[in-house]
């Protein structure tokens, strides 16, 4: 049984089935990206912070644009060669297309990786510091003597699992505890299973809804964990993600940041930003900042005498988003007018000698309202950036897989029914062009404007 019009077009519509299919699919893709782009507009017009412009690596973005355009040319060439029955050239063009997809994704991964290693810290007065965390950031507790574990009797989302959620953050060797009835145990999978079974039994008899286990450490413990690895803490208690509460003393929650940028756009009097507090960057950097800012304002007033300096997003960024390129403040008169984004100078490796070029500050927790690396969490711009480019990247991968399949595994059809393969390549190519078309809008919207 053969479905009609798989290879040749139906006379009255002039189309074969797959072509209608792919156009319908592309129509739904238009709505998918339409939804995402309208989300972009919605977020951008509603943003309550300066929307980042030229913050991404424009060079890398441009290279990717060229790569994608080239692959678009080669895929349509592959189809034309197949129509002309030039099989060698078809294979060549198809191979270039797939390789281009690989290059595109490789560049994308470089871009993502640099973002993940780069951090932004928001201070209480609205200043945003960007930079790297040379030692990561951990909350440290010491003198922990007591663990309180809660085991709900009914299946629940949060139940004590000290082996998975507590022990990985305890410094030193195997932790020894005393149970409530005075037994001394080394906490591990098997001892905890036995303990919780006993506690559950007791709680069931007492008709409680949850069992609690109290463990006393034989010697005080030290704990160090990233904020994302724990649920929360106060000066004396630390709650783990499994609901276990440890009692001890907060030792350190200061953040050591190698600052490569001070964004004072959110501060009313930018020179009085908390970043220039004597504990942090200090007066010398403040002077450099003010000098740079005023220099940009003057230049702008000279070049565009009729324009309002508060309404130029570019000027605001150049003047108030101050980039630090050396470990100590530059002498007066240096370091003006650089137009590069922070990313251009951020080394892709994340760590290395390059960090000697930035001053290091130790931020106190009470001054920090929010911090994140350059991931969707940072702000809505990076959220939509990762969503759009991530989904676009998925489309690139999917398209490349389909085209690679035609190239590598459809040889039989190539010999026996090249017309059918040409249809398949045309349909795959249409999808590929659509991916290119989306990028044509993504590139200016995310990288340039």
């Amino acid at each position: 049984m053969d479905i009609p019009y798989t290879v040749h077009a139906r006379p009255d519509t002039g189309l074969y089935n797959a072509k209608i299919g792919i156009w319908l699919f592309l129509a739904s893709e238009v709505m998918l990206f339409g939804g995402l782009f309208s989300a972009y507009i919605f977020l951008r017009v509603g943003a309550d912070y300066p929307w980042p412009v030229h913050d991404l690596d424009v060079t890398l973005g441009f290279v990717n644009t060229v790569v994608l355009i080239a692959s678009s040319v080669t895929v349509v060439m592959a189809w034309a060669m197949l129509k002309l029955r030039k099989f060698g050239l078809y294979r060549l063009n198809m191979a270039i297309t797939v390789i281009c997809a690989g290059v595109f994704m490789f560049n994308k991964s470089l871009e993502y990786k640099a973002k993940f290693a780069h951090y932004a810290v928001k201070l209480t007065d609205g200043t945003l510091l960007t930079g790297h965390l040379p030692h990561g950031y951990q909350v440290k507790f010491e003198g922990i003597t007591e663990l309180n574990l809660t085991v709900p009797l009914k299946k629940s989302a949060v139940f004590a699992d000290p082996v998975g959620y507590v022990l990985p953050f305890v410094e030193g060797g195997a932790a020894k505890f005393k149970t409530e009835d005075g037994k001394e145990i080394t906490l591990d999978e098997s001892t905890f299973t036995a303990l919780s079974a006993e506690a559950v039994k007791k709680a069931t008899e007492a008709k409680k809804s949850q069992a609690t286990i109290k463990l006393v450490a034989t010697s005080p413990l030290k704990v160090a964990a990233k904020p994302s690895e724990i649920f929360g803490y106060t000066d004396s208690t630390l709650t783990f993600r499994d609901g276990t509460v440890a009692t001890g003393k907060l030792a350190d929650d200061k953040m050591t940041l190698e600052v490569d940028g001070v964004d004072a756009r959110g501060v009313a009097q930018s020179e009085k930003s908390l970043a220039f507090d004597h504990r942090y960057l200090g007066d010398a950097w403040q002077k450099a900042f003010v000098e740079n800012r005023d220099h940009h304002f003057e230049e702008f007033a000279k070049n565009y005498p009729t324009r309002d300096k508060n309404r130029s997003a570019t000027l605001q960024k150049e003047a108030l988003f101050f980039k630090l390129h050396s470990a100590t403040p530059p002498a007066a008169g240096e370091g003006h007018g650089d137009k590069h984004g922070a990313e251009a100078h951020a080394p892709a490796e994340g760590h290395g000698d390059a960090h000697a070029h930035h001053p290091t500050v130790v931020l106190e927790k009470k001054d920090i309202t929010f911090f994140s690396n350059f991931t969707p969490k940072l702000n809505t711009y990076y959220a939509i950036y990762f969503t759009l480019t991530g989904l676009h990247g998925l489309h690139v991968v999917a398209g490349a897989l389909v085209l690679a399949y035609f190239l590598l595994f459809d040889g039989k059809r190539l010999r026996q029914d090249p017309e059918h393969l040409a249809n398949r390549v045309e349909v795959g190519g249409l999808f590929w062009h659509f991916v290119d078309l989306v990028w044509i809008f993504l590139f200016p919207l995310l990288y340039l404007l």
Partner: protein
Amino acid sequence: MSAAATTHDHAHDHSHDDHGHHEQSFIWKYIFSSDHKTIGLQYGLTGLLFLLFGFFLMLLMRWSIAYPGIPVPGVDFIRSLPVASGIFEGMFGRWLNTDGSLNGELYNMLGAMHGTIMVFFGIVPLGFAAFGNFVMPLQIGTIDMAFPRLNMASYWLFFISGVLMMCSFFVGTGPVQTGWTMYSPLASTANIGVTSIWSHGHTWWLSAMVFNISASLLGSVNFIATIINLRTKGLGWMKMPFFCWAMFVTAFLLLLAFPPLEVAAILQLSDRVFGSSFYLPTGLMEGGKHLDISGGGSPLLYQHLFWFLAHPEVYVLILPAFAILTDVIPCNARRPLWGYKSMVYSVLTLGFLSFLVWAHHMYLTGMGTMMSTYFQITTVMISVPSVILLTCLMISLWGGSIRFNTQMLFASAFLPMFGIGGLTGLPLAFSFIDLAMHDTYYVIGHFHYVVAPGTIFALFAGVYHWFPKFTGRFMNDTLGKLHFWPSLLGMNLVFAPMFIQGMAGFHRRWYDGGKYFENTSGFSNWSTKLTHEIGAFFGLNIPDNMLSLNIVMSVGAFILALGQIPFIINFWFSLKGGKKSNSDNPWNATTMEWATPTPPPHGNFLFDPVAHRGPYEYSVPGHPTDFYPQWESEPGKPEIKPAADKVLAHH
């Protein structure tokens, strides 16, 4: 048909009158089948099971509303069963109060899952995917869908999505509790502190929806491509049965409305998993604490993306119902469909307008006067094509010699029921009324009248109508009537009091049915007095206040539940023991699905069907019989012999 016959498997050769199609092993014939009819049946059975399950959730909710704080009957019994107790405990039992009564938390879960399952897993698969898949290719005279393997992928993606959705009952925090609409920021932040994202039902819900949406997209691409490219010879667009037109429009709605929902789901998933702030405004606090988020997003974004899908979705629910009725009503009234062309243009207009009205679900979000005026106008406009569709169906009955078999009973009950649902929706189109009615039982009553006694009645009509084509056997008519009358009574008892309660201000999310809202529930009117009197007649002490209507609705739900038992018995019994149909066209219908052998073999037709005329040529003057099928080239020379009279004798 393919000559590549595989091994003949007698064990699963159910139909001996199959017309020589090649046999496949059970797995390939019934499980991983790419045949549109098998896929249609798979969708149908899965959809019916989900409908039943969603209905069961509703029964639990109704119990809680009518009898808050009173243990659910039968819980102890289920808990004493060996295997069922484990499943029950994992799904519902662990959330019940210790005495076995419902609480708000479980009520919210049931509400959210009832909506989700009914809409995305019950009615759309049943109405669009099942009937569309089975009937549409037959009606346009083709051998299969344009992309059979895509069709199979569509069903299995849907199946995976159903499994994921059911899994969400068993995970740590249970299924979602934030309503089927999943409004952010609540849905983005609820239970955000769980140990693993997979222990929260929301992640499962979103994942299931991604699969469900993909399945719908594949299905709709397939439907449209099939209708455009595989219509048989002579079947011009205006000779196509309205059924196919409605499916065509529905497929477009699914194709273009679902992607924004996919976007909404992806962004919400990102909010939950990556901590982004798409839907979270700056300074959002929960439990007196600022959340660890950047803010800067907007909850309105979610509502826009969601309702951009969800309003066309309403028409995805109702158009298959109209599709089915345009076959059932002309066939049983023995009259042509009145106003075929105006119906086609109406359905096209309806499809287009349905994309322009979504924000009438959002009047309460603080929309300015300009936008709300725009959406009020389009909303009122869209009622015009809906009314045309309903009116054409009603006029089609005029002067007909109506056969009141079961499917016709359901079909004729649909008309007033949908009418009530539609007319009660009109006031809601106006923002000043909607502001007061928003989220009350009035709204619940309105859309349930459209979907429950509306769409579901049409779906039942379709099951009774095409059952002889699926199986070669009739469903029992007596059991069918036993199914119909309690269903009609039950539906109205459940949904009509909702209008009264809604006007009184009853809110849809009260798990106690308003017991603790004395100012709202404490007064009486004619309906409560009537309930009180009827209760007194039976020796029951039903209070004379608005709460009594809760009891009426719960009794209605119970009657409705009982009413489905004859259907279930009828369905399974008739598969093997129903009266045999000795014709391929037992209802003497005119559309082309009745030209196929019964049940239709792989490849469908034994001859190349050609459409010679329009699809509704009933009672044509001068024609020897009262129907003139599309595929007959001239009178008296039918390719398929007409039904024997005795088949229809009992009408």
